[in-house]
């Protein structure tokens, strides 16, 4: 049997700023080719740290103290930086959170969309342009010719996110990290973008790590889910199993806290303090 696409093994990280406070505690997870994994947790749970670690962009204030991130069996943590840059540049892509700031305001879409194709694939600008047009059609942009000529400020937020999705899939990466890609968008656009990421993932056979705090999003597009609290994996498994038969009290409480569209009058149920106390005792936060 071949190695899984990605396996994170006992990853530990601390903050160098807050007296070495732990950020990740023995995090392990695996991701198979073509699988969509939801990385769920509240703010500070460590989901973004995991995403940044595997993109090689951890801030200087975060220090990995142990564990491994294996991509097709190769440990990213011990790889020389040049090789790591090439591997990430070709095989791992990011769909960022905020489409407003993720496109360079001073460059046309064409230049930004074809950069990687010219740099990594060695395509001529004509070939790269043809490929970019095709990508834009794939993400359901109606007049791709105009969009290629446009500057980011001439596009709506949803259009920009589509461009960024096209850009993420441009090199046919094996893994796409989607960092809360719908938080900055209108609710109606959110649904379209989620479906688009799911469609693109299926056609290209790409694995996706979906960083989110929204279990509803997980239910819609993720095959499996890993739930984090304070840097520790609380629950992990197939999405259907976790959502229908959660094992951990925290997961149950979270699911109960979500709005019930079938019973709109039922109100929201906050996670009871006793659940947090038990959780913190379990992790050892005192």
């Amino acid at each position: 049997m071949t190695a899984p696409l990605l396996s994170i093994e006992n990853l530990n990280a601390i903050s160098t700023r807050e007296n070495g406070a732990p950020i990740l505690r023995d995090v392990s997870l695996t991701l198979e080719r073509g699988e969509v994994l939801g990385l769920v947790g509240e703010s500070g749970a460590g989901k973004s740290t995991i995403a940044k670690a595997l993109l090689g962009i951890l801030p200087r204030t975060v220090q990995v103290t142990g564990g491994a991130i294996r991509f097709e069996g190769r440990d990213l943590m011990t790889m020389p930086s040049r090789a790591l840059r090439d591997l990430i540049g070709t095989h791992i892509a990011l769909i960022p959170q905020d489409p407003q700031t993720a496109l360079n305001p001073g460059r046309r879409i064409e230049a930004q969309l074809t950069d990687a194709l010219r740099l990594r694939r060695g395509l001529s600008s004509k070939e790269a342009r043809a490929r970019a047009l095709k990508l834009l059609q794939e993400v359901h942009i109606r007049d791709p010719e105009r969009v290629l000529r446009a500057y980011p400020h001439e596009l709506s937020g949803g259009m920009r996110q589509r461009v960024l999705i096209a850009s993420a899939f441009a090199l046919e990466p094996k893994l796409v990290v989607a960092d809360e890609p719908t938080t900055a968008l209108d609710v109606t656009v959110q649904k379209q973008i989620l479906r688009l990421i799911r469609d693109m993932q299926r056609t290209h056979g790409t694995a996706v790590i979906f960083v989110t705090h929204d279990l509803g999003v997980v239910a819609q597009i993720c095959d499996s889910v890993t739930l984090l609290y304070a840097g520790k994996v609380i629950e992990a498994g197939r999405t259907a199993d976790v959502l229908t038969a959660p094992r951990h009290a925290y997961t149950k409480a979270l699911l109960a806290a979500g709005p019930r569209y079938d019973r709109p009058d039922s109100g929201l149920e906050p996670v009871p303090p006793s659940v947090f106390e038990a959780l913190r005792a379990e992790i050892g936060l005192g």
Partner: protein
Amino acid sequence: MIAFSILKRLAMAAITLFGVAVIVFVLLRVVPGDPIAMMISPGASPESIAALRAQYGLDASLPMQFLVWLKAVATGDFGTSISLRRDVLGLLAERLPATLELAFAALVLAILLGGAVAVAGTLLRRTPGEPVLDTINGLFLAVPDFVWALALVLLLGVAFPVFPLSGRIDPVHQVDFATPFYLLESLLRLRFSTAADIAAHMVMPVLALGLPLAAIIARVLKGALMEAMVQDYILLARLKGMSSLRLVLQEALRNAIGPTIALTGVQFTFLIGGTVIVERIFAYPGIGNMAIDAVINRDLPLIQGLVLAFGALFILINLLVDMLVVAFNPRLRHG
């Protein structure tokens, strides 16, 4: 639409120049000092003084003098220099190119050096090299042009006489120039030894004028680059595998450069103002040096001509700067 806005700018420029002309004209005549007294030998008869005064039109009322002068200027007649007894326009045409060559050489130096320091500082961010570079740049910011000029004279002119101390060109090379743009012309006519001599004469004044501006450009551009470098689009470009230098030059620079262009434009006009003292120190035959003589000699027509030339130059620079800022920022291009 574009033609209209350019026309509007030109009309504004004309009004500004008119304002400059009025202010200079009035100021010069309110300030004490009589040009006729400077021209004539002591003990001349009141009759000959009055005759001379009439000859230069200085006996008419102030508004009358202004109208006469303005009408002449409008037809291209800037009058005759009282001290040099030559056509003012001819003098300007002869001296202005010398100053322009000096100022633009200093500007190019400042942009290249300041830009390189800003990019280097951005690449060195969060390394021990960054504070070192910042401190050196801070020192350069603190030293004004004329101090540079004097320090350079002592260092490269006297202690280690590498460069000629004064003038624009060695008399050996003084050969049949067709235009007053000596450096440009000798380069275009492939007379490289002449060009090298002119360039050697320019080295010290150009350094004195350019170094302070380079420090300003370095400081402002680095600040803007540092801000741009933390943006998400830089992160995405980095993930695509771009080198740090390419990130700075291709991704960050175009978004960071706007404020620097605007500031460089303003500072460039100060640099041209600085040519007055720096040209004096190096006895460089430009309009700055001529301006000092003109003021000492109360040479009213020449001063007026010079100030108008400076004013026109400043307005032109500001116009160019505005156009450049728009060219670099696609968000300003429409409307």
